[in-house]
């Protein structure tokens, strides 16, 4: 069974069509890098898979079930995190806040909850880190806490929205390697959105590239080509390969990815 099945999917947000008639099938246990220019609908697609945004038309199936249903629960790492950088609470409490955090009642986890938090922290190799205040963690260490949060409930599908953004290249590599290790160990499916291809090249099974309402899913060699990307960007795009790295360049000369990154800053 596929982990995520998109069938003639059209998504609109704020009256704007973000994805139009997209079909794609993501297999169980795949590591998928999701790319595309800003506004291409990467986050919107993740929200739809989480069941937060109903499709305008077409269907989404997560392990054969409608998104948002209990059987289709996905672990989620949102891109935007407001105001936890200066939090004087320990990482454990940050992770634990997400364990059944939507239930009413006092913030008492119980033995099962504590076990689950400990397991998630152990899985992301952050058990010792979790005793330190969040304000003292580096960007990469904080990302590990947030990844542990996403693992609570042992989801079979992880949706990671820009987990590498605002990390030093050194940390980017460490975080990607960790995600890959976690994915292999647990045998789960990962959809990870990013701006830059290169940190992910060795780890992705396939690439999902979004642009101008369309999507292309396939191996890096199939998708990251001048022909496919020119269609998705609706502009002439060149793809340069050297030393096992890929540079995507607009025909006017600017590096597309670098530009996309700057808009975000």
């Amino acid at each position, binding site marked *: 069974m596929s982990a995520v099945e998109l069938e003639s999917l059209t998504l609109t947000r704020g009256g704007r069509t973000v994805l139009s008639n997209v079909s794609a099938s993501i297999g169980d246990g795949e590591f998928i890098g999701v790319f595309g220019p800003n506004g291409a609908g990467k986050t919107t697609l993740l*929200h739809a898979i*989480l069941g*937060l945004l109903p499709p305008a038309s077409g269907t989404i199936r997560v392990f054969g079930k409608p998104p948002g249903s209990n059987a289709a629960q996905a672990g*989620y*790492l*949102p*891109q*935007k*995190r*407001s*105001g*936890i950088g200066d*939090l*004087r*609470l*320990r990482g454990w*409490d*940050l992770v634990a*806040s*997400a364990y*059944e*955090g*939507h*239930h*009413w*009642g*006092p*913030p008492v986890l119980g033995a099962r909850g504590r076990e689950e938090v400990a397991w998630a922290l152990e899985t992301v190799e952050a058990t010792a880190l979790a005793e*330190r*205040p969040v304000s003292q963690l580096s960007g990469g260490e904080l990302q590990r806490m947030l990844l542990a*949060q996403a693992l609570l409930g042992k989801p079979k599908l992880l949706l990671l929205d820009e987990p590498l953004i605002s990390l030093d290249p050194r940390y980017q590599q460490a975080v990607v390697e960790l995600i890959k290790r976690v994915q292999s160990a647990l045998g789960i499916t990962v959809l990870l959105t990013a701006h830059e291809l290169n940190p992910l090249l060795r780890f992705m099974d396939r690439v999902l590239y979004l642009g101008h309402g369309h999507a292309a899913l396939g191996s890096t060699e199939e998708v990251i080509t001048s022909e496919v990307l020119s269609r998705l960007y609706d502009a002439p795009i060149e793809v340069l390969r050297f030393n096992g790295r890929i540079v995507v360049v607009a025909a006017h000369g600017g590096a597309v990815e670098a530009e996309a990154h700057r808009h975000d800053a």
Partner: protein
Amino acid sequence: MLEYDFMRTAFAAGTVVAIVAGAVGYFLVLRNLAFAGHALSHVGFAGATGAVLLGVAPFWGLLIFTIAGGVGMGLLGDQLRGRDIAVGIILSLSLGLGVLFLHLYTSHATQATALLFGNVLGVSPENLRDMVVLGVITLILLTAIARPLIFATLDPELAQAKGVSLRLIAVLFLVIVAVAVAEAVQVVGILLVFALMVGPAAAALRCTTRIRTGIVLSAVLGVAETWAGIGLAYVTDWPPSSWITLLSALVYGLTYVPRLLPRAAHG
């Protein structure tokens, strides 16, 4: 000093208020809403003086206005962030209205002083009963929403994705804050609410990185400061509010001391 009824009532009222304010205040500081809490008490001043004008007990006017203000702030939600100027203008408008109501009532400067700076020694047994009932309700409500409140505070984006209504949580929480503020006003007054709502909580957040320990410590610090303040007031004949604010500032200041010591001392 405990042979006097008014002293026993004062200690009891101070205890209730300090526990409620300490626990609620912890979340207030965690959510970066300290200034909003301060403003809520000022909104209450217009309510309290308006109630006096209408011949109603000021506490109920205070409570109704702080709750209305809390609901309003909760509905504004995220738009409230960084709106210091708007909050400040509403704050001064409320104080101005309160002064007008007092003027129209044409008397009772003592009434105003008690509202502005608190008068824990003047709490009547009936007041105390109301405060205990409201305090217990506040703590029960806070306990009931604590889990999603913490989730929504630390991870608003994730909480929203898991179906938590950030707006509902914000409104419920600020209603709880409104009741806690109305209670705290009875002890330290409108202008000094920070001393009980924010001081102990801020100190607790500097002392421990654990949420539950922090909540308990915040309440314990608040009770200790209030008891010591009332006790010192009895001995010195200075106002209890002055002592409580002084102790609150002192305890908060002390949490910075370990940082000033040589590094080796706290490793």
